């Protein structure tokens, strides 16, 4: 009874804290410009099924994909066991589902198998990150915090799974002791292997170990749950909506700017009148996170910093500063910083948004101008994040608001404007190539 109350208190606390953080993230995402994404619902669900749930795009890197499937499948399956743990905790019961009899033993053994695959996956991931030091985990933007974040997640998962196995092992032994009241469901497949380690212990120590692991596991889960929204690990939730809302149009299509269309029509069409006469001041392109759409901001929160984008970016491969992953990470950092100020109830003047840092305090023009718009990053991202869109919106700000394109590009612009070609050739000469075309002539 007493433990039930403690459990219910901890559970409620964990849920409330998690809910509040998630609500804050939702509000942060909504700081972005409003856009409506409600077309092709069927196709969008299909993509959720294949890309998010089915992890289709992970397969481009088969080893990582397999290890990730181990952890992902394990995570989902072990959550079924979480149901029992939660009910046991609230009701003060022990292994409530054991009334299923032999089937229960089989199920727990299957969960244990998955726990082992999770542990294997996490262990190899740790080796890949810290011992093999795979390049994409050590790019410049992978500073101490992002690297630690990844390790914290992997080690926590290892510890949580170990706790389950030790709990099951000791439970199995206790079932055979005449002086304990553990329900007899038999030992479980994997944990029985480690039983010899504990078999010499007195029942009291075994009960302590079993209970300790049970509490360690569930409290660990609650802490981890509340760590996730602060971490890159938030992708376990946002991947699904992010894929759902991701771009369906061909990758080559850039987002339109209706605000510019209005301006151009005013210039080109004599009798064009501005219908909605709202003199609302619009920023062309993106200077702050407010100028990005909520989808770009959702992208930022979905990123798990795997670095596939950066490792396939031609600019990054050849040593330029640009890293698509950094663009997305910077967007999130800037957004969090601004959200902290805006949603702080005790806001002072120095928290005014005007004084906040902009995207350009995080991302340099040099990075932006190194992009070839080749779409390797958007193709690579397993959860359809679009770093290119952010780069292009920021370029638009630089050019349209600041006239700050690199010099040679300014020349290109004036060439296009004056003679209809990016080079300085007269439009009158556009047919020069056609003067000497011969059939059956020798080609160079």
């Amino acid at each position, binding site marked *: 009874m007493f433990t039930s109350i403690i459990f219910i208190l901890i559970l409620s606390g964990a849920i409330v804290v998690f809910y509040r953080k998630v609500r804050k993230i939702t509000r942060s995402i909504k700081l972005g410009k409003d856009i409506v994404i409600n077309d092709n619902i069927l196709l969008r669900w299909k993509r959720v099924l294949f890309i998010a749930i089915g992890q289709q795009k992970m397969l*481009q890197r088969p080893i990582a994909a397999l290890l990730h499937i181990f952890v992902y499948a394990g995570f989902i399956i072990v959550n079924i066991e979480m149901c029992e743990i939660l009910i046991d905790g609230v009701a003060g019961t022990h292994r409530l589902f054991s009334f299923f009899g032999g089937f229960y033993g089989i199920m727990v053994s299957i969960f244990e198998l998955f726990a082992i695959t999770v542990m294997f996956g996490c262990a190899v991931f740790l080796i890949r990150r810290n011992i093999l030091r795979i390049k994409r985990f050590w790019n410049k933007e992978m500073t101490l915090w992002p690297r630690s974040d990844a390790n914290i997640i992997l080690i926590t998962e290892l510890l949580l799974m170990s706790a389950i196995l030790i709990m099951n092992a000791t439970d199995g032994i206790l079932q055979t002791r005449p002086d304990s009241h553990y329900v007899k469901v038999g030992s479980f497949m994997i944990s029985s292997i480690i039983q010899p380690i504990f078999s010499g212990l007195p029942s009291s120590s075994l009960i302590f170990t079993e209970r300790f692991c049970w509490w360690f596991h569930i409290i660990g889960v609650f802490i981890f749950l509340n760590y996730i929204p602060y971490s890159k690990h938030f992708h376990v939730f946002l991947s699904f909506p992010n894929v759902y809302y991701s771009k369906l149009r*061909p*990758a*080559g*299509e*850039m987002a*339109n*700017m209706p605000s*510019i269309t209005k301006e*151009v*029509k005013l*210039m*080109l069409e004599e009798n064009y009148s501005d219908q909605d006469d709202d003199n609302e001041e619009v920023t062309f*392109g993106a200077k702050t996170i407010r100028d990005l759409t909520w989808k770009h901001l959702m992208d930022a929160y979905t990123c798990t910093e795997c670095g596939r984008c950066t490792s396939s970016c*031609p600019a990054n*491969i*050849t*040593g*330029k*500063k*640009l890293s698509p992953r950094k663009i997305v990470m910077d967007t999130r950092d800037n957004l969090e910083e601004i959200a902290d100020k805006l949603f702080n109830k005790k806001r002072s003047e120095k928290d005014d948004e005007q004084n906040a840092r902009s995207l350009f305090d995080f991302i340099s023009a*040099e990075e932006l101008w*190194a*992009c*070839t*718009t*080749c*779409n*390797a990053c958007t*193709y690579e991202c397993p959860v359809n994040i679009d770093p290119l869109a952010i780069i*292009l919106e920021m370029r638009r700000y630089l*050019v*349209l608001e600041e006239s700050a*394109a690199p010099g*040679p*590009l300014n*020349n*290109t*612009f004036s060439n*296009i*404007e004056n003679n*209809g*070609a*990016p*080079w300085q*050739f007269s*439009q009158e*000469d*556009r*047919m*020069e*190539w*056609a003067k*000497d*075309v*011969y*059939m*059956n002539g020798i*080609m*160079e």
Partner: protein
Amino acid sequence: MEKRKIDIPVMADLFAKNEKPEYLFWVGSAGAFDDRYKNVVRAFVKILTHLGVSYAVLGTEESSTGDVARRAGNEMLFQMQAMMNIELLNGYEVKKILTCDPHAYNTFKNEYPQYDGNYQVIHHTQFLRDHIEAGNLKVNSAIFKEKTITYHDPCYLGRANGEYAAPRKVLDFIPSEKKEMKRNKNNALCCGAGGGQMFKEAEEGDKEIFIERTEEALETGADIIATACPYCMAMITDGIKYKNKVEEVKNYDIAEIVVLSLGI
């Protein structure tokens, strides 16, 4: 065979005679002004002539599509170009556009509809594939028989629009060895010229992207690097020069390979 000069039909002339060609062939600024790339548009019009296709070009009325301007952030200039071009194209009642440039292809197909410019857009590799498959182009000469060809995917045909098959299909009809680069199709490495890079210096780094890509192409041991985009051609041609392989390795557009195979 007799050498015969081709007169390139111009839209304004045809329209004056009340003729409406089936296709508009969009030459593009590189086709009009880049000395090396002019040969590609010449090759393509030879094929059009050989097939007896009804087409015309805009000639001196043609202007930049605005692709570079848009990707370099100048939306204002892009939209002005787009609206002026659309007015011109719609004035000539253009329905189908042929182009050798994946950037023009992408802009016409995906972006001009944003301003009511709706056309059926066909990249020349798709057009060539269709006509070869239909048996209209007999490309079975032995000219490349002893040669190995590797194909470089342009980003704006490949990843941007999902067209990996058409250019490969055309090459499959040319008797020759084919070899893929390590990074190909979805994973192809950019030549380094898109998004405005063609017209500016590269940012500081360890290496130029075009050299990285050319090295990868050379690793295949191919005699010919086939391209299907004016920027890719400029970059790969530079790369071959940089690697001192001008004698051994050639860079041809798919249209040029077809013309050489047809012997026209």
